[in-house]
């Protein structure tokens, strides 16, 4: 299909402003696709020069493992934001699922460590799925905006976390848990990183290659068009929020394996880093556009900034300043592209 459109050509030569606008649009599109990768490389280079130990093997493990926290939540958030929604509850659900899993593990420990770990994991995952389902159902059936619904469930999940844990850490988890959490897979990944990589690949393939992924984009791009095309919009939205809840729970459980302690403070504000990663990664808050690869880059930028500044012993408060600046730039570019389109 390479036939050149005759009318397009004449249009370009007749109307003078059309050509430069088209050109700047293409240029902006390229910039929008690649500027984040450039920023990541620059940050890596700067940290590498300032502190060579930043590029060490141990820091690779450190940074990638740290990154899983943001990245897992961001994967679910990518789906949600592509549908033109938002999920503010992921951090709180991550925390609640972790506490539920930890409590169940402690309770089941007498029946055997493996049994306890499996039972706890299932209970934690179930918590995430139920919260995701709740988000999806309320958003679609009661037609409340995602922002408000997930703000509400964020409060509910946070409250439940403190009620269940009594506000203190859950300790005495099975010892084997930290063996798993600190295991190395394929020589280059920590266990949480490995699980995250699997999720990342699965989420990417599902988004680009399956009908469900296609519907996620279609709904975010024009929900009315999707509806008229016979796509079950509500059912797909419920799936998306459930996915987001489940993946948040997975993140909470993986944190348990790292620290072998369930902290009620886990996940606090994590949704902000996740949303930041997604937006920095080029996913449009207007819906319809976004990539998993972009989210990976976005999460990498945030994580590298944080661990890098720690290594440079910069006051940790500068991290949020830096991330804030990047978010604003990212959203500005998003809006600029949206207006051009």
């Amino acid at each position, binding site marked *: *299909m390479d036939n*050149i*459109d005759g009318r397009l050509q004449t249009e370009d030569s007749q109307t003078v402003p059309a050509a430069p606008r088209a050109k700047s649009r293409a240029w902006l599109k390229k910039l929008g696709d690649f500027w984040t990768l450039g920023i990541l490389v620059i940050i890596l280079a700067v940290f590498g020069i300032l502190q060579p130990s930043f590029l060490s093997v141990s820091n690779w493990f450190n940074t990638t493992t740290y990154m899983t926290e943001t990245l897992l939540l961001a994967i679910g958030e990518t789906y949600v934001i592509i549908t033109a929604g938002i999920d503010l509850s992921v951090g709180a659900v991550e925390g609640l699922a972790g506490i539920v899993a930890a409590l169940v593990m402690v309770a089941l420990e007498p029946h055997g460590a493996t049994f306890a770990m499996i039972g706890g994991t299932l209970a934690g995952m179930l918590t995430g799925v139920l919260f995701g389902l709740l988000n999806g159902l309320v958003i679609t059936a009661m037609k409340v905006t995602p922002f408000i619904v997930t703000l509400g469930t964020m409060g509910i999940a946070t409250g439940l976390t403190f009620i269940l844990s009594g506000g203190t850490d859950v300790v005495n988890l099975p010892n084997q848990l930290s063996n798993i959490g600190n295991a190395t897979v394929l020589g280059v990944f920590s266990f949480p990183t490995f699980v995250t990589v699997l999720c990342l690949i699965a989420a990417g393939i599902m988004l680009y290659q*399956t009908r469900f992924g296609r519907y996620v*984009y279609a709904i975010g791009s024009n929900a009315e*068009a999707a509806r008229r095309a016979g*796509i079950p919009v509500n059912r797909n939205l419920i799936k998306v929020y459930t996915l987001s809840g489940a993946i948040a729970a997975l993140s909470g459980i993986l944190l348990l394996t790292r620290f072998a302690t369930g902290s009620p403070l886990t996940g606090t504000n994590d949704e902000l880093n996740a949303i930041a990663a997604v937006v920095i990664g080029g996913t449009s808050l207007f819906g319809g556009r976004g990539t998993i690869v972009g989210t990976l880059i976005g999460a990498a930028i945030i994580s590298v900034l944080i661990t890098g500044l720690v290594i440079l012993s910069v006051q940790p408060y500068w991290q949020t300043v830096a991330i804030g600046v990047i978010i604003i730039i990212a959203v500005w570019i998003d809006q600029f592209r949206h207006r051009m389109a």
Partner: protein
Amino acid sequence: MEPVLQAKGIQKYYGSVCAIEHIDFEIYPGEVVALLGDNGAGKSTFIKILSGVVKQNHGQILIDGKPVQFASPMEARRFGVETVYQDLALAPDLDVTANIFLGREILRGGLLGRLGFLDKREMRGQVAGRLDQLKVSIKSVAQIVSELSGGQRQAVSIVRAASWGRKLVIMDEPTAALGVEESAKVLDLIKQVKARGIPVLLVTHTLPYAFDVADRIVVLRLGRSVADLRADETDTNEVVQWITGSKTVDRIAELQGHRG
């Protein structure tokens, strides 16, 4: 020959507002019919009934002579009636192929298909073929719709409707937002659709367009079908008289009386 679609004695009230009083309508295989009428004559309402968006209070719709009931737009489409809506209904962030196959994606064979994997190559191939058949010039089947011109977007909508409308393609003012050149392209496209044997029901306010593509012209006035004219046996003057009401049903009855 049997009409592909027939509407008999259609009536539609919105509450106590009578949008359509009485419409009789039929369309035959391979025919382009232009539906004309003043603002508020009931054109859009009639089209919504035919495409399953609203339900008539009275009257019957028959496809191939069999009575049908459309409970939803999806059902109308299952019967092969496709509509190009005035407000396009495309997903601007998806590409041309994804839009044409929206809601009707082709999946791969075997296990991957059951997992919901798309057969993108097959869909692209089919879309390329259809664009070729209908002589639509779009640079690539993978082009994002938001990058297309208004006329090209309208072409995508029409190709989509023509791809799935086995019985009838309905278009509500497809040239309303377009310039002269782009409108001409859309008219050409309608002729291509007709050439492929698919009947088209076209709503328009632009008489020359109606005369350009239509075999038959049906005029609605105040919720009634008042005239059904062969395009080659009438002229703009007569049609305008029907639209404005300076010519009425009684007078045609009179004329027929003279003839008979």
